[in-house]
């Protein structure tokens, strides 16, 4: 079996950071010293202090508490969005790439249409129909990004489809579905992992950009992306407003990406072991 102890230190650090954040998110109600939405008009824009570990924002809300609760919002939304995008994009991409022919044509048609639409238009329309909310945001983010995913997946599948061992297995009587699940999927798994981890990071960043345009999470939700956006007026004089959520986002994206790399390394080592038995 693979020896975990041989893993580079950096991966262990990444895992540790991730666990730290997750526990912060889960135990936020217990750890947080203040209500993240409690407005304290006399304590605005304070720096680090005994009463406020990371200072306060323009409404006097405790930044540390907002970071903890923000972890919940940011992480859960990002994972959910990345998952939805993956499920949609991967399944359609696999089907499209493997079967080819008319199905491929139709799905590619859809992909091109979705990619050609201005993402913002879609977001406003969805927000308009469903009312601006986390669910509509989720739907909007998924719909605007699944097409890119499916193209990448399709590209990978096209490469693998022509491998000799696929022919071999097919001649042994394996059904298309079996081949898809047991041969195609594992082979593209590595790229998928990396894409999934990148996706989580991208979603967190997208929310920040969307807040800039007014399409992000609704206030007073303590989302890290929103906090970063709010900090852009004050950061020159009150850098803690930016540093706290900024470093958190950095840490989250970076550690998730590293975990993805670690998994990739793990799987390729596994492949090497498998190859010995081929």
């Amino acid at each position, binding site marked *: 079996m693979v020896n975990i102890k041989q893993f*580079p230190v*950096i991966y262990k650090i990444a895992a540790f950071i991730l666990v730290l954040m997750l526990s912060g998110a889960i135990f936020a109600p217990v750890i947080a010293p203040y209500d993240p939405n409690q407005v304290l008009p006399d304590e605005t824009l304070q720096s680090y202090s005994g009463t406020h570990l990371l200072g306060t924002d323009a409404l006097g809300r405790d930044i540390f508490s907002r970071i903890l609760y923000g972890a919940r919002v940011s992480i859960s939304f990002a994972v959910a969005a990345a998952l939805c995008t993956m499920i949609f994009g991967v399944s359609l991409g696999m089907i499209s790439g493997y079967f*080819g*022919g008319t199905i*491929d*044509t139709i799905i*590619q*048609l*859809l992909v*091109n*249409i*979705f*990619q*050609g*639409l*201005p*993402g*913002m*238009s*879609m977001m*406003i*329309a969805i927000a*308009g*129909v469903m009312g601006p909310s986390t669910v509509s945001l989720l739907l909007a983010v998924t719909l605007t990004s699944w097409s*890119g995913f499916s*193209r*990448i997946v399709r*590209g*990978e599948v*096209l*490469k693998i*489809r*022509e491998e000799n061992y696929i022919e071999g297995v097919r001649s042994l009587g394996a059904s298309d579905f079996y081949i898809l699940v047991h041969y195609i999927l594992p082979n593209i798994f*590595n*790229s998928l992992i*990396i894409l999934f981890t*990148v996706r989580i*990071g991208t979603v967190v*960043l997208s929310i*920040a*950009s969307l807040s*800039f*345009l007014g399409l992000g999470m609704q206030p007073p939700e303590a989302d890290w*992306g929103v906090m*970063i956006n709010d900090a*852009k007026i004050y*950061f*020159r004089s009150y850098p803690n407003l930016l540093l706290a959520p*900024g470093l958190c*986002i*950095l840490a*989250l*994206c*970076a550690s998730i*990406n590293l975990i993805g*790399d670690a998994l*990739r390394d793990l799987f*390729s080592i596994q*492949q*090497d072991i498998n190859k010995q038995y081929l």
Partner: protein
Amino acid sequence: MNDFLFYLVKKILMIIPVLLGITIAAFILGIISPSDPAAVLLNMDGVSIPSIQEIANKRHELGLDRPYIIQYLSWLLQILHGDLGVSYITQRPIWDELMLRLPVTISLASFTLLLVMFTAIPLGVFMAYKNNSKSDFVLRTAALIVTSIPAFWLAILFMWIFSEELHLLPTSGYGTFAQMIMPSFALAAGTIGTLVRLQRATLLEVLEQHFILTAKAKGLPFPMIIWKHGLLNSLIPVITLLGNYFGAIISGSAVIESIFSLPGLGSYVLEAIRGRDYPAIQGYVIFTGLVFVLFNLLVDISYLLLNPKIRLGGK
């Protein structure tokens, strides 16, 4: 050769239903969005409060009281005659407005794309070669950090450092090379980070494959192996990403354009959406849809050229 031609023709024919699909989708999005362009127009000054009758008159003037099918079909007919229509807000021909903004977006997209290609690909290759060494580590960390900062923040930071503090670069506007530097970097940074890691990963994978071993056994020098066999194969997912990315640039650079006052297509469609300027949105969609679809055609063709192992269209 015949196969190739057939593939090409099929791809070109596909453009039409895609464009149609995009316009129908954009039209539907316009319908279901909460809005009344007439009310938006009449209140544009932030002071006037139009009466119900005035709004109705305006709707009639803009043709918004016709059934949706008629609105869409008459617009389609107009397009087929080469007329993109007139913007609700500025009353100018949309074609003129798009042409005004196109050079800006093209400059931004080209600079960014060049930046991405000429930093990400060589760096990725370098990192794969120096796998697990110190420089690999440093570069990977840098790539990680750069993908973890929202683009608009990079833009603000750049502006703060290079314009406010150092007075090295102009903050905004369009016209000189210096004005394109910060926007391109801000747009390119995230993608460079992603691409670098993707390039490194896929190249490493390709290098593990058997045919590389064969080439090694044949005694070919390693760099030539990377160049001839490894690089070309590993470029496929990279090119796909670039294809997606180009589309994202065209439509998604609205934030960067807004920050750096670049009057490009991204901010155009943002304004049009805010003002519910349907003809402008539809015109934009057709225009960029066409560009995007043609670009993807190029990408698909380069797939074929890079890996003839992908058979055309069937098993």
